């Protein structure tokens, strides 16, 4: 028998499906996976195409960071600054309120509640995520705003000497504070369910060790559970932040959108939100303003994309001790 020269060569192993059912399944799965790339690319191309005129007339930097929006001026001025900062401000308020709430919910479900109750709370928190944002917006406008305005007034009376709680006009409705709380309601389920997931995957032995060393529940949470889970929790927070930045209708209903930039007087009745501004102006916009609104959408899209990429990176990499 002659030795085949090829026998020592590395062969490519076939991983292709043979059965017909497998081939169909592979095809569908592959198409579904690739379609997400295609859809993102198409959206980007569309947005960029429509946004270019606005970028050309306004200049990218002025567009993103300037602070005048006037379609009737000549030349027209479209500058997004107050909205972009407003989105960030509202999201930050939302996240600051949502973090302690979400961690407490997750801790309760995972470490305190009996099984039946834990299941019930999990379901209810997940249901919270399923409330359409228009419903939350209407609830926010007609039910919650008057109540929150009362809280805002108390904050102002007690802590008005701190600049961020200053409000000389004494109008407490439609403020970033209220919009922030409404956004918090929307992102609590996201952060809580990711935190719960991380808690449930934690090595129970580490928690037991902390208790065996004389830790109580509070110190065990603070010194051991949170540091160990921090990577995942931060990822969840950033995912929530992404949702908060893009929130449109609910914010529109509870916020007075104003291009008079509000740097941080959270109780005052003026604020900004890119997404809400787009929807509020879209109906009556002329072609050049529509281009500017598309450009605003593009800026928000990029911003959210960056936040989400950071989120997935942190979730994946920030826990080096995980094997």
């Amino acid at each position: 028998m002659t030795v085949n020269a090829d026998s020592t060569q590395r062969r490519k192993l076939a991983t292709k499906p043979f059965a017909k059912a497998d081939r169909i399944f592979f095809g569908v799965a592959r198409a579904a996976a690739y379609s997400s790339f295609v859809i993102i690319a198409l959206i980007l191309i569309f947005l960029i195409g429509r946004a270019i005129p606005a970028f050309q007339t306004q200049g990218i930097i002025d567009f993103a960071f300037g602070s005048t929006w006037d379609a009737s001026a000549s030349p027209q001025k479209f500058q997004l600054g107050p909205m972009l900062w407003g989105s960030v401000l509202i999201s930050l308020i939302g996240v600051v309120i949502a973090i302690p709430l979400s961690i407490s919910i997750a801790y309760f479900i995972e470490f305190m509640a009996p099984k039946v109750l834990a299941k019930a709370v999990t379901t209810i928190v997940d249901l919270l995520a399923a409330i359409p944002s228009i419903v939350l917006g209407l609830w926010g406008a007609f039910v919650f705003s008057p109540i929150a305005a009362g809280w805002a007034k108390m904050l102002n009376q007690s802590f008005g000497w701190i600049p961020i709680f200053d409000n000389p006009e004494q109008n407490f409705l439609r403020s970033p504070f209220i919009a922030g709380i409404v956004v918090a309601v929307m992102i609590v389920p996201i952060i809580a369910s990711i935190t719960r997931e991380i808690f449930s995957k934690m090595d129970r032995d580490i928690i037991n060790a902390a208790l065996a060393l004389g830790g109580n529940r509070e110190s065990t949470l603070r010194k051991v559970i949170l540091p160990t889970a921090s990577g995942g929790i931060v990822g969840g927070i950033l995912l929530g932040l992404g949702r908060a930045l893009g929130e449109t209708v609910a914010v529109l209903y509870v916020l007075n959108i104003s291009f008079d930039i509000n740097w941080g007087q959270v109780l005052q009745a003026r604020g900004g939100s890119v997404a809400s501004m787009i929807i509020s102006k879209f109906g009556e916009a002329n072609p050049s303003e529509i281009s500017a609104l598309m450009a605003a959408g593009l800026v928000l899209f990029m911003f959210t994309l960056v936040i989400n990429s950071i989120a997935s990176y942190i979730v994946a990499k920030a826990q080096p001790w995980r094997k």
Partner: protein
Amino acid sequence: MSSRTYQLSAENVNVWFGERHVLKDVNLAFPSNQVTALIGPSGCGKSTFIRTLNRMHELIPSAGFGGKVLLDGEDIYGDGVDPVKVRLKVGMVFQKPNPFPTMTIQENVLSGLKLSGRKNPNNEELVETSLRRASIWNEVKDRLNDPALSLSGGQQQRLCIARSLAMGPDVLLMDEPCSALDPGSTRRVEETILELAPQMTIVIVTHNMQQAQRVADQTAFFLSEDGNPGHVVEFGATEQVFEQPVDPRTNDYVNGHFG
């Protein structure tokens, strides 16, 4: 030997999980400054029993308890006894090495102080004495600020022992501390146990007959037969339990006939 003092003792300890009775009428006294081994086949309740000695048992939902555990003459299950205080006196080392992953070697040794809110005047000294007592000081003294997970499994386990010792417990409970370790690391941990024995009361759960014979002054044999709750079949000096057991079941078990 007649003037033995018993720092820790269990009186009529019964344990349930939900409706299931898993331990029945366990009476054991652990002599001060000696090592007591708990042996028995899997599922006999020895790991459950050791957890009743520092009130870790009650952390499992549905866990039930009856009887008394006396520590320095006081029932640790008595009214108004704070389980956290009990655990400060009765340290525990677990089956799998479980140093805190986010902390350095030094932070792990001091973690009990942080967790319990206790203050210690000289942390550096405490780190060194604790690591020395766990016989790991020479291996880690130049890298105290390295992550605890950079240590080998055996070193991690001795770090966990040091972490418990730093709290100055009177009793150390060890739940199969070597079952996840290789023979070399096992030997080092056993040496550590023998060095600690004159200073504190040690209770160790083990599956390893030779280990019980090497480290323990006393041995208790647990057995759970035919779905009945686990109970102590034989308890006495280690030599006697292994060489001249009274109960034939003990004889079968220590000679490897079952389990």
